[in-house]
Structure formats: structure tokens, C-alpha cells
């Protein structure tokens, strides 16, 4: 072999092969990027990406079933392949779920509720068949958990308790021995089906090449080729059918185990969990559990009793909460700017104290927990806790206060002005909730 051939091998072929292999290895699901961004707490970017993933008009047929290939998140999915069918079916529920969890973390509870509701609805639509029951179960569990937390911080304890009960139910199913066994087998199926994907990608590349050649040859052939998608061989169809049969067999095994161990009917359970409008009302026990599972209760249990609010501090807070309704007044001038006059410094200080109060509750007693729950963990407390100021908002108002003066002007047309208006709205709402909560203690 002469030097020229070796040179070509080193410069062109080997890097090409490396590039090809690396491209094959970086085939990640559409939601993987959002997961990475979630760890970096880049929430606005996740919302952008997730909304883009929803834009799939024309790729699904009108009944909501997946047909043919779907492009989303920069990838092409062919629903005829088991692993891709799983991904493509999860696209919409996963996009909604990502928006829900991001909204929850951002304190946008209503957005979280809406997104989780949509995730459950689209899960019923795309993951309704027997083959996808495990994915749907996991999706229901996570979304009911989000609904529980979001309703809790909206102050609707009844709805929070209903969703918490569903979450516990799904949790029980998912953590059962039978489920774990089935999931281990499922993983084996998934790994087997990965070969199909690489096969599919190679075939698709070949098909594309053929299409280009045909297009160059004749106009008619080009038109035909542009409409023709990848072929689906009978052997692959048989393999896919085999995988489907295995998945359903696993499900049957799981159903049997559930019936024997827990006396549960899985189909009925799933139907009930997905029907958000017909969930049974909560019992007193559900409400109690929902409160006791909340972050605020857990924090009160584990935090240092020395740092909890004592009676003197409660009295102090009561005094502060007595006359807070007229701390600031808003007026608008002809140019549309908002003038904030009054004691903004005191409002900001009070807001900081209100934010601290739910995190410094007295520790719950060993006995008589119900009385503690009724006294402290009221809907008003959760609403107050849900209206916590973000670090950015606090820094903004601290800066405004440090500037001094009796009146502040906010221009709503600017992004900072919008944040100021949102922050003011939040502080005023919070003060109202605080007044009623502290008065009832």
C-alpha cells in the first residue's frame, strides 16, 4: 500500500468512520436535551423547546393516532419500530410533563396544572393501548404528583388531596415487585429493538440516495419518490409483532400478580386515574395525608426547634399584619407609567418576613397532630408559601428601596417594569393572605 492510499485512509476514511459512529451513538430521545437543561435550571429554554415539540400538525392523523414518520426535536421517528413508537408516542405527553415540572419549579402553579392535565389527557390518547401501560403508569404518577403540589400551593386542599391519593396509588403499583420484574424484562426488549433503529437509519439513508438518483432521472419518478417514504419489510413487521406480543404477555403477567398480591384491577385503575373530572372526592384521611406529605410539614418536622417562630414572634407578626392593606398605593400617569407611593420599604420587609413564616413553623407535636394541621397548615398558609418572591424579584425591590424616596415610577413597557408589576401584585396578594392566616392563629 503506497503512501497516498495510507494518507487517504488516515485523512478521509478513518475520520469519516469515526464521525459516522459517533453520530450513531448520539441518538438521544427528544426530551434528553430538556432533561439536561432542567439540571442546569434553564427553565425558559425548556418551555421554548417543549412548545416547539408540540407543533406537529399534519404529522398525526385526525384521530390522534401516530401514523408514518414524525419529525420532532430535530429527529425523525418511525412509529412502525417498537423503540421509536415508544418515543414518538411519548413526545406530546413528555413535552407537557416537562412544561409542568418547569412551571412548578418557577412558581407558576396554574401553568403547571394546565400542562399536567394536558399530559394526562395526551397520555390517554397516545399511551392508551396495552403495550404502553407501563409508560402511562409512570406518566400518571408524575403528573398527579405535579397536580397535587400545584393545587396545594394554589390553596385548593381538596383537589390536592384527590391528586395525592392518585399519586400514592400509582406509586404503590410502580413500586410493586411485579412491576420491577416486568420493567427488567422490558429493558431487554428495548435493547433488542435498538438494532432495528440502526437498521432503519441505514435503510433510510439508502432510500434517500435512491430517491435523489431517481429524481434526477425523470420528473415523474421524482414526484413519486418524493411522496414515497421508507419501506417496511415483512420480516421487520414480524419482528415488531413479536415484540408487541412479548410486551402484552408481560402485561398479562403483571395483571395476574396485581390480582393475586393486591386484589387490584389494573385496567379499571388506569381508567379512573386518567379521568380527571370524575375522581372521587377526598376523605378526611386523604386531606390529612396530603398535608402531612407537603414540604412545609416535613420541613417543620426536621428543622431545628430553636429556629421556629416562638410566641413573641407570632405576636410581632400579628401586629405587623394588622394594618398592611394600605402600605402602598398605585397610580398611573398619562404616559402609562405606574407610580408607586407609600412605604415600599416596609412592604418589602414584610414580604420577606411572610416568606420566612411558612419555613419556620413550630414543630408538630407527637400527639394531636390533627389540631396542629388545622391550626397552621391552612389553605391560606399554602397560598402564602406559593407566592414566595424569586431571588431576582427580591434583588430588584431591594435595589429600588435602597434608592430611597417616597415614590417609584415603573414603566410597564420594559421587561423590568413587568417584573416589578408582577412582584408588586404578588406582594399585595401575599399580604392579604397573611393577614387572614395570622389573625386565625
Amino acid at each position, binding site marked *: 500500500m503506497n503512501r497516498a492510499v495510507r494518507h487517504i485512509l488516515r485523512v478521509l476514511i478513518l475520520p469519516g468512520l469515526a464521525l459516522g459512529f459517533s453520530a450513531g451513538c448520539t441518538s438521544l430521545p427528544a426530551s434528553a436535551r430538556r432533561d439536561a437543561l432542567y439540571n442546569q435550571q434553564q427553565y425558559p429554554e425548556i*418551555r*421554548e423547546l417543549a*412548545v416547539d415539540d*408540540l*407543533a*406537529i*400538525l*399534519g404529522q*398525526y392523523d*385526525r384521530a*390522534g393516532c401516530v401514523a408514518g414518520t414524525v419529525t420532532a426535536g430535530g429527529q425523525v421517528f418511525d412509529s412502525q419500530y417498537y423503540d421509536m413508537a415508544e418515543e414518538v408516542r411519548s413526545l*406530546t405527553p413528555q413535552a*407537557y410533563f416537562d*412544561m409542568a415540572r418547569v412551571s412548578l419549579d418557577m412558581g*407558576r*402553579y*396554574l*401553568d403547571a*396544572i*394546565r*400542562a399536567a*392535565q*394536558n399530559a394526562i389527557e*395526551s397520555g390517554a*390518547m*397516545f399511551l392508551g393501548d396495552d403495550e404502553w401501560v407501563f409508560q402511562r403508569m409512570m406518566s400518571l404518577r408524575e403528573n398527579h404528583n405535579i397536580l397535587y403540589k400545584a393545587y396545594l400551593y*394554589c*390553596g*385548593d386542599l381538596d383537589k390536592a388531596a384527590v391528586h395525592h391519593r392518585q399519586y400514592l396509588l400509582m406509586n404503590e403499583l410502580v413500586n410493586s415487585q411485579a412491576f420491577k420484574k416486568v420493567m427488567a424484562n422490558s429493558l431487554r426488549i428495548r435493547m433488542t429493538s435498538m438494532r432495528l433503529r440502526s437498521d432503519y437509519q441505514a435503510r433510510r439513508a439508502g432510500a434517500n440516495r435512491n430517491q435523489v438518483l431517481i429524481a434526477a432521472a*425523470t*420528473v*415523474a419518478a*421524482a414526484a413519486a419518490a418524493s411522496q414515497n417514504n421508507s419501506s417496511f419489510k415483512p420480516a421487520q413487521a414480524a419482528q415488531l409483532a413479536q415484540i408487541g406480543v412479548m410486551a402484552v404477555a408481560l402485561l398479562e403477567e403483571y395483571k395476574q400478580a396485581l390480582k393475586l398480591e393486591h386484589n387490584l384491577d389494573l385496567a379499571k385503575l388506569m381508567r379512573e386515574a386518567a379521568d*380527571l*373530572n370524575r375522581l372521587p372526592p377526598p376523605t378526611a384521611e386523604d386531606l390529612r395525608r396530603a398535608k402531612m406529605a407537603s414540604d412545609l410539614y416535613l420541613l417543620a418536622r426536621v428543622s431545628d426547634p430553636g429556629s421556629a417562630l416562638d410566641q413573641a414572634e407570632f405576636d410581632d407578626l400579628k401586629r405587623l399584619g394588622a394594618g398592611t392593606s394600605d402600605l402602598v398605593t398605585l*397610580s*398611573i*400617569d398619562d*404616559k*402609562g407609567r*405606574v407610580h408607586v407611593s407609600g412605604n415600599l420599604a416596609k412592604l418589602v420587609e414584610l414580604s420577606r418576613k411572610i416568606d420566612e413564616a411558612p419555613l419556620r413553623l413550630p414543630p408538630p407535636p407527637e400527639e394531636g397532630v390533627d389540631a396542629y394541621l388545622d391550626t397552621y397548615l391552612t389553605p391560606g398558609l399554602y397560598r402564602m408559601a406559593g407566592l414566595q418572591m424569586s431571588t431576582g424579584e427580591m434583588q430588584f425591590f431591594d435595589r429600588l428601596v435602597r434608592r430611597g424616596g417616597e415614590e417609584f415610577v415603573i414603566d*410597564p*413597557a420594559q*421587561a423590568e417594569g*413587568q417584573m416589578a*408589576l*408582577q412582584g408588586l*401584585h404578588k406582594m399585595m396578594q401575599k399580604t392579604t393572605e397573611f393577614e387572614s392566616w395570622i389573625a386565625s392563629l
Partner: protein
Amino acid sequence: MSPAQRLVRNTTGTCRKGGAFLCLGRGLLVWGGVLLAAGCASTTLNRPRDFGAVVGREPASIALGEIRDNVACDDEAFYLQRYLEGQRVFYDCVLADRSDVRAYHGADLIVSGKIAPAIQTRRLGWGVFASWITLGGYYLLGGPTREQEVRIAYDFEVEYADSGQSRNYRFEDVRQATFGLYGPGINLDQKPGVYIPGWERLLYEICKETKVQRAGRAP
């Protein structure tokens, strides 16, 4: 022509906004100077200048209830929320709980509605004829052989907390594009871009109505 009439109108063209560069490239390659001179008719809709009126006169927040089109798998309210946040007309835009759209938010406006898109593609007889006569040369050079029409009917219900009244807004957006081998220059059938003119019109109507309602109680 009033701003409202200007917002939604029949449009015919082969490129628009982001697609303009792609279209221009194709035009240069295929048609040379011909498309450069005649093809790129911009269809960007005019925005009324008083969009900031709601925030300008008095801050307002908006809640989005159920907004559906004929594809059940996604919720149009998410696209509308992103659009409204970008416009900075309202200081807050939330998605309402579907089981109770009035709960928890206390927004000044609640919007719900329905969108009905209809997409029709038909072959242009003279384009096909020209393709046969030129043995495919006309088609390969990108001559138009098909026409696509998108007709979107919007039906929005808006509740104004200021007056306690509800208003219904119905309007239609019709747009057409002709294309051949290379497909339409406009993404006529892709969400959420295809709905933006309708949302612009809705926003315009809301701003106009809120301005009228709040005019009597200026600070």
C-alpha cells in the same frame, strides 16, 4: 382600510418572514432575476400602534382557557401564551385550570375559543400542461404546478372582568401560495406560525375593547 381590516386579509405570495431567505436562494438558483423582481411579495401584517394601550392605561393580566383546533393532540393555549408573553402587552399571562377557568388567578381577561383550519391543495392545470409540453423542464425549473389555500376560522370568547361582560370575536384568515417541485415557500400548514395573524387580530380587538372600557376611569 381600518387597522382591523388590515390585520386579516387574503394574501398571495411565495415567501414570508423567515422563509424569505430560503425562497430568495431558490429564486436565484432557479429563476435568476425573475423571482427576485416579482416573486417576493411580503405579506407581513401591520401591527396597530396602540398595542401597549392596555398596559399603558392600566396594567392587565390575562388567563387562557380552552383553545382548541381540529387536531386534538395539542393545546393551542400554549402557543398563544408564548405569543402574548413576547408582545408584552399584559404583565402576566397564565393558563387557566381546564376544570374551572375562573379559579385561582383573578385575571382581568379570560380568553377561550376554537380554531378551525382547513388546508386545500389543488393542481394547476396550466402548470401540469406546461410540464408535459417542456418534457418536465418547466417542473424541474420550479415552475408552479400546485396551489395551496389555508382558510382558518377563529372563534374566540373573551370575558372582561372590568365590565363583567363577554364578547365574541369571529374572523377568518385566508392565504394562498403557488408552488411546484420545491414546495410552498410559506409554511402554510405548520403550527404555531400559521395562527399568528389570528392572534394578532385577537390582541388588537382585546386592546381596543379594554381601552374603550377603561377610558372612563382614567387616573
